[in-house]
C-alpha cells in the first residue's frame, strides 16, 4: 500500500492486467510515447502521461501508437476483441467519440446481441471527461449518459485512485465493451492504493458517508464536491447519505432506493447535462420505484443546458459547485 495518484492507479491497473494476460494489448494516440520521432521512445504515454512506461515493458507488439484515426483503430480494437484479444484503447477526450460514434455504439455495443450471442467483445475504451481546464466545448464534456443510453456498453466513472485501479482491472477482465471515464481534474488526486491487483465488482455503489436526513448521489468528480458540501451540512445538523454509483451501467439501483427509503429525500449531483443525463435517469428511477418513500421533490444539481464555455468565469458557473449542492440539500430538507 502506498499513496498513489489516480494517474498511477490507472497505469498500475493496465500494467497488472498486461502482466497477467498476454491477450491484453493497448492502443491509442501517443500511448506508446509517440512513435517514429527523432527523440526518445516511450516519451509521452498519452498526452497526460498515463501510459508512460508501458512500451518499455511490453514492447511495440502490445503497445501500439495509432494515427489520428479513431474510427479506424476503435473498429480494429472491436475486431481484435471479437478475435480473442482484450484491447485497452485510449480515446483521449470523450468528445472525440463524435468521429467514431458508429464503431462504439453500433458496432461494439451491438455485436454480441445482433449476432445472436455468438461473440463477446472484451474491449475497454479509456476516455477523459470533465470541465474545468478552460478548453471549451469540444474538450470538456461528460458524455457518460450518452454511453449509458446504449444497451451493450458498460460505463464506469471512478471518482478516486482506489476505485480507478479496481474498476479498470474489472473492465479489462470483463467480457463486454466497457467505457472507462477518467475525470481529467482527478489525475493528481492521491490516496492509498494497494500495490497488488484487485477488482471492484461492477454495479456496486460505494456509500461514502452515512447520514439519514438526505440521500446525495454524486458521480465522478462531483463526488468530491458533494462530499465537501456534506461536511458543511453536518455542522448544520444535516446528515447525508453520500452514494457514489461508480458505474452507470450496471447501475446499483438497489443501494439508491434503499438509501432513499431511509431518508425520503434525494439530491443528485452530476456534471453531465440536465437533459437526458444521469441525474434525470436516477431521478426517474426513484420517481418510479421509490415514490412512496419521498418526502420532498427530487432535486438535480447539474450544469445548465449549454455548450461548455472556455472563459473561466463562465465555466465556473457551468460546473456544479458546493454552494449549489448546499442550496439543493437545504431546500429538500426544509420542504
Amino acid at each position, binding site marked *: 500500500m502506498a499513496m498513489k495518484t489516480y494517474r498511477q492507479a490507472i497505469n498500475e491497473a493496465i500494467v497488472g492486467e498486461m502482466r497477467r494476460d498476454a491477450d491484453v494489448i493497448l492502443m491509442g494516440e*501517443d500511448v506508446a510515447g509517440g512513435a*517514429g520521432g527523432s527523440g526518445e521512445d516511450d516519451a*509521452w504515454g498519452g498526452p497526460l502521461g498515463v501510459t508512460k512506461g508501458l512500451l518499455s515493458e511490453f514492447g511495440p507488439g502490445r503497445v501500439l501508437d495509432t494515427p489520428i484515426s479513431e474510427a479506424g483503430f476503435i473498429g480494429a480494437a472491436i475486431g481484435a476483441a471479437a478475435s480473442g484479444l482484450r484491447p485497452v484503447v485510449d480515446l483521449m477526450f470523450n468528445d472525440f467519440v463524435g468521429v467514431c460514434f458508429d464503431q462504439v455504439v453500433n458496432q461494439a455495443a451491438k455485436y454480441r446481441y445482433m449476432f445472436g450471442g455468438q461473440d463477446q467483445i472484451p474491449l475497454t475504451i479509456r476516455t477523459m471527461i470533465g470541465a474545468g481546464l478552460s478548453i*471549451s466545448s*469540444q*474538450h470538456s464534456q461528460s458524455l457518460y449518459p450518452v454511453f449509458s443510453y446504449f444497451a451493450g456498453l458498460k460505463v464506469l466513472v471512478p471518482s478516486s485512485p482506489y476505485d480507478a485501479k479496481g474498476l479498470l482491472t474489472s473492465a479489462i477482465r470483463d467480457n463486454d465493451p466497457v467505457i472507462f471515464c477518467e475525470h481529467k481534474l482527478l489525475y493528481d488526486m492521491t490516496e492509498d492504493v494497494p500495490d497488488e491487483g484487485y477488482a471492484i465488482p461492477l454495479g456496486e455503489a460505494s456509500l461514502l458517508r452515512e447520514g439519514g436526513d438526505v440521500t446525495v448521489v454524486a458521480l465522478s468528480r462531483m463526488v468530491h464536491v458533494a462530499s465537501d458540501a456534506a461536511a458543511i451540512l453536518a455542522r448544520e445538523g444535516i446528515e447525508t447519505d453520500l452514494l457514489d454509483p461508480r458505474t452507470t451501467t450496471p447501475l446499483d439501483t438497489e443501494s439508491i432506493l434503499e438509501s432513499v427509503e431511509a431518508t425520503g429525500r434525494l439530491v443528485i449531483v452530476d456534471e453531465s447535462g440536465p437533459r437526458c443525463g444521469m441525474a434525470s435517469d436516477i431521478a426517474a428511477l426513484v420517481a418510479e420505484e421509490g415514490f412512496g418513500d419521498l418526502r420532498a421533490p427530487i432535486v438535480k444539481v447539474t450544469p445548465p443546458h449549454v455548450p461548455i*464555455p*472556455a472563459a*473561466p*468565469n463562465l465555466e465556473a458557473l457551468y460546473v456544479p459547485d458546493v454552494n449549489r449542492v448546499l442550496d439543493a440539500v437545504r431546500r429538500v430538507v426544509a420542504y
Partner: protein
Amino acid sequence: MATQSRTELLAAYRTMATMRAFEERMHIEFAGGGVPGFVHLYAGQEASAAGVCANLTDHDVLLNTHRAHGPAIARGADIFAVAKEIYCRGEGLCRGRGGSAHLHDTKNGLWAANSGVGSGVALGCGAALAARTRGTGGIAVALVGDGAVNQGVVSEGLNLASIWKLPLVVVVENNGYGEATAAGYAIAGGGIARRAEAFDMPGVQVDGSDYFAVFEAAAAAAERARRGKGPSLIEVEVTRFFGHFEGDAQTYRSRDEAERARRERDCLANFRRTVVAEGILDAGELDLVDTDVADLIDRVYAEAEAAPYPPDDELMEFIYADSL
C-alpha cells in the same frame, strides 16, 4: 521570381513578423501562468498561412486549425481580439467562449479553428459549394495538419471536393508530428501530397521555410479553384519551433531538432535574406517593421490581460439563432 509588389512583400513580412512575435510572447506569458487553457503555438510555420492568405480575397474562407493563432493573424483578424479570445475575454473574437484553439472571425473569412482535427476539410467543401452555388466567386482553403490527414473526414472531404469539382484548396501543414507521433510513422502511401493523386487532384509539396514557394503554390491552386477546375492539395513542410502545446517536454524529438530549424529553416530569416539580396526591400525598412511589431505586441498583450471576462449573465447566450 516574386509576383508580388514591393508593398505586398513588405506587408507579407509584417504579417509573418507579427505572427512570430505574437507566439514568442505567448510562450513567455503562458509559462507565467496568465493564459487559460491549452495553447498550440504556430512559430516556425508562418510562411504557410502568410503565403496562402496573400492569395485570398474578401469572398474567400480560410478554415483554421487548433494551431490557430498564426492563421488568424495572417487572415487579417483583429490581433487585439485574437489575443483577447486566447485570454478568454469578453471582447475576444468569440466572446471568450472558444479560447485559443477555436479562433473564428466570420466577417474576415476566418472559420472554425477546431478541436475536431480534420473537420475543416468537410466544412470547407460546404463553404466552397456555397460559394459556387451563390456565385460569389469565392473559394475555400482548409488548413489541416499532417496528423489530421489520417481522419476519415479528410478522405471523405477530398473525395467529395473532387467529384463535385469544388473550389477548395486543402493545405496540409506537415510539421512532422501529430502531437508526439511522427508523420513518418503514421502516414502510409508515400507521403501526403501523393494522396491527392488518388482523388484526381493536383498535389504538390512545398518548402514551408520559403514564403515564395508557398505563395506560388497557393496562387496556382487558388487560380485553378477560381476557374472552376476543382480542388488541389498543397503539402507545406514546416518545423514547429515549440512543443505540440505549451508545457510539452518534447522528449519524443531530438534536442536540436527545433534549434536546427530555427537556424536553418526560419522562414522569416529566409525571406529577409532573399528580398534584401534581390534588392527588393532593404534591411532598414524591415528593421523598422520589427520595431513596429514589437511595440504592437506589447500593446496587444497589455490590452488583452487587462480586458474583462465575459459577463456572468451571458452564459446562456448564443446557443440558438431562433430562441426556443
